[in-house]
Structure formats: C-alpha cells, structure tokens
C-alpha cells in the first residue's frame, strides 16, 4: 500500500511540472518582451528539470524508463491537475494565436505558490529520496515565485484594461484550482503513509500566503473552491492535454531508440 501511495503522489508531482513546463515553453519567442523571454525560458528549464527528477524517482521504483514515463503515457494515465493542461489561449504558437498573458501570469503564480507549500511539506516526507529532492526544488523556485508575484502585482495595479484581463484570468484559474489541490482517489493513503500532509492543511497554508498579496490589490479569496470539472488525478483530462501530448511527443516517436 505504501508503494502504491508513493507512486501515485510521484506521478502527480512529475506530471504537474511536466505539462506546465511545456505550456510555458510554448511562449518561447512570444513573451511580452525580450527579458521575459529569457526569464520564462529559464523557469521552464528548471521546471522540466524538476519533472525529470520526479520521473527519475519513479524509474528508481521500477515504474519504467524516464523518457517513456514522460513521453509515452496515454492521456488517461496522466495525473496532472486539469488547470495546468489548459491551452495558453486559442490558436497555435507556430501560427495565428491569441495567447493570454494574464492567464499565464495568474496560473503560474498560483501554481508556484502551491508548489512552494507542497515542497515545504515534502521536506519531512517519510520517503527520504523525495524529501531530498524537495529541498533542492524549494531553493530553485524561490526565484520563480518572486518572478510571478511581481508580474501579478504589477498587472493587477496597472490600467483598467490590464486589471480587467487579470480579474477574468483569476476567475478562470479559481474555477480549475481544485484540480491541483486534491490528491485524488488515493489521497487518504498518501497522507496516512506520511508522504505529505493533508490537503486541507496545504490549502490553508497556500491561502495564507496569497492573502496579503490579494489584500494589496483589493481582491478577495473565495471561501469555498468550485469542485474541479474533471479530475486529472484520476486520469480524466481535456482535449487540450491530448493535443499537447501529441505535439510534445512527436520527435520522440520518430525514433524511440535514438540516444540524446
């Protein structure tokens, strides 16, 4: 039972970072300005590195090869929160698109703050290799969090156009955020195994960190979160994920035996 719970949690951690790092990388060359392009690429690279570490922990447990775990698993085997798979906006990065920067800022800020809370808790995980990785990830996301918080505050306090777009984005992210905060059907086992603290504890801590930032921009945090439309933790996903996986695995499938 311990192993099942552990593997379940590791898939959630790995898949979360993997898909959001991909969504971030779709902004390459399209970010609002050149400095942001540099910063965002660096953040995506870090996040992909974190995903690789979590997949490595799974490989160490006999779940398969890291490249297969990241590229070949079907949509219904993926455990990421649905929030993280949503497209950046309509269109495709190679052609016509209307990517939404406000949505990206809000989603990354919410996620990074949650990741911080999650890593804080994992530092005392009963699975030592996971606790070790959490210490390392925690140090790196210090800069990510600073980055997204700065964008969040600035766009919230800019002109009315910017404020309007941000409020809309916040609403969209609230609608999905439950998909990120839950541990899925094996949640009780995961907590009982001492792998991470309970969902509501993390939720409270996460809200606690968001509160001063929300107060500074005169926004309130909803008391209750809307239940997620699809449970990514159970392998239920949107078409967005299916399309993303097809694109990001295209090169891998050209020759799965190629060495990199």
């Amino acid at each position, binding site marked *: 039972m311990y192993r099942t719970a552990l593997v379940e949690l590791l898939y959630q951690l790995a898949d979360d970072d993997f898909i959001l790092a991909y969504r971030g990388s779709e902004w390459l060359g399209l970010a609002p300005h050149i400095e942001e392009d540099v910063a965002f*690429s660096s953040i995506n*690279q870090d*996040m992909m590195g974190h995903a690789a570490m979590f997949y490595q922990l799974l490989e160490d447990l006999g779940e398969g090869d890291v490249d297969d775990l990241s590229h070949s698993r079907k949509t219904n085997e993926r455990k990421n929160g649905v929030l993280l798979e949503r497209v950046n906006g309509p269109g495709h990065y190679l052609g016509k698109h209307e990517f939404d920067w406000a949505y990206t800022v809000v989603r990354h800020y919410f996620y990074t703050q949650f990741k911080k809370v999650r890593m804080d808790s994992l530092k005392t995980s009963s699975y030592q290799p996971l606790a070790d990785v959490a210490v*390392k990830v925690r*140090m790196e996301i210090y800069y990510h969090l600073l980055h997204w918080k700065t964008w969040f505050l600035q766009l919230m306090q800019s002109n009315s156009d910017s404020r309007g777009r941000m409020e809309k984005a916040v609403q969209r992210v609230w609608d999905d955020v439950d998909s990120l905060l839950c541990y899925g059907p094996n949640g009780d086992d995961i907590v009982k195994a001492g792998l991470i603290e309970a969902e509501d504890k993390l939720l409270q801590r996460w809200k606690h960190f968001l509160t001063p930032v929300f107060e500074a921009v005169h926004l309130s945090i909803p008391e209750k979160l809307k239940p997620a439309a699809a449970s990514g933790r159970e392998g239920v996903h949107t078409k967005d994920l299916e399309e993303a996986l097809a694109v990001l695995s295209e090169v891998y499938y050209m020759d799965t035996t190629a060495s990199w």
Partner: protein
Amino acid sequence: MNEEMILKALHKVKDPEIDSISIVDLGMVETIKEEENRLIIELLPTFMGCPALDIISENVKKQIISLHLYHHIDIQFIHTPPWTSNRITERGREQLKSFGIAPPPAQLSESGDWEVSCPYCGSQYTAIENLFGPTACRSILYCKSCKNPFEAMKPISTLM
C-alpha cells in the same frame, strides 16, 4: 587511492559554460571513493535542469581515464547535500570574476536583496536587470559606474 592525482584531474574539468572555473572550485564534487576497484565520484548539480550535466559527466570520465588508474569509473549526480552557492571556493570566486561573472553574494541580507559588486570595476552601484540569465545559475545585471552589463551567479541557499 591517489586522491591528489584524482583531484588534479578533476580540476581540469571546467564548467562547460564558464571555462575559467573547475567543477571542484564550483563546489560540485562531493565525494571521491573507491569500492572494489571501482572509482565512484559523486557530484552535486547546481540546478536540476542544467543541460550541461551530461557534458560534465563525460568530461570527468575522460580526465579520470587519462590517469590510467581505474578501469571502472562511476559518475553519479546526487542531491544530498544540495548544492548551494556558498560551496564555491575563494579561488572559484576570483575565477568567476575573471570571466566577467560576479560571484554570488556570500550571504543573503534579511530583506532578500543582494548587493553585488561589478566584476569589472568593483563598484557597488549596480542594478539587477533580470533575475534570470542565459543559464539557470546566472542573473543579468548592469553597472551604473562603469556602464557595463554583467552577469552574477545567483545566490542559492537552503534558507530560501
């Protein structure tokens, strides 16, 4: 085990992206040990997503093979203890400067702000342009005194 020779060989392995500093002075070498005729070298990655890790590992192997002391060499990246920027040696800090990269601030101030001296003129009158630079471990700054853009190694600490 001839640790002196091994260390000397490791000093020849430079950061692929900053060729003035060795992986030893960067603080990446954690342990060198011998087990049943096998040399095991444990390295700490600076950042987890660093794409230079494979190159570093290959270069370490090449240097050790050239010593003709070991047939079996095992290079491992480990995460405990985590690499932190205060592992960079005094010599390493000087070598970074000679490359035009400011060494990381030795200690983070309480407010979290850093004070970085310009690697060219030594002025403290510098500004951060971008926390993120061309590689995961570097930031982009500007010296208001000598008007040079420069890079700095990011401070990384378990206290963050």
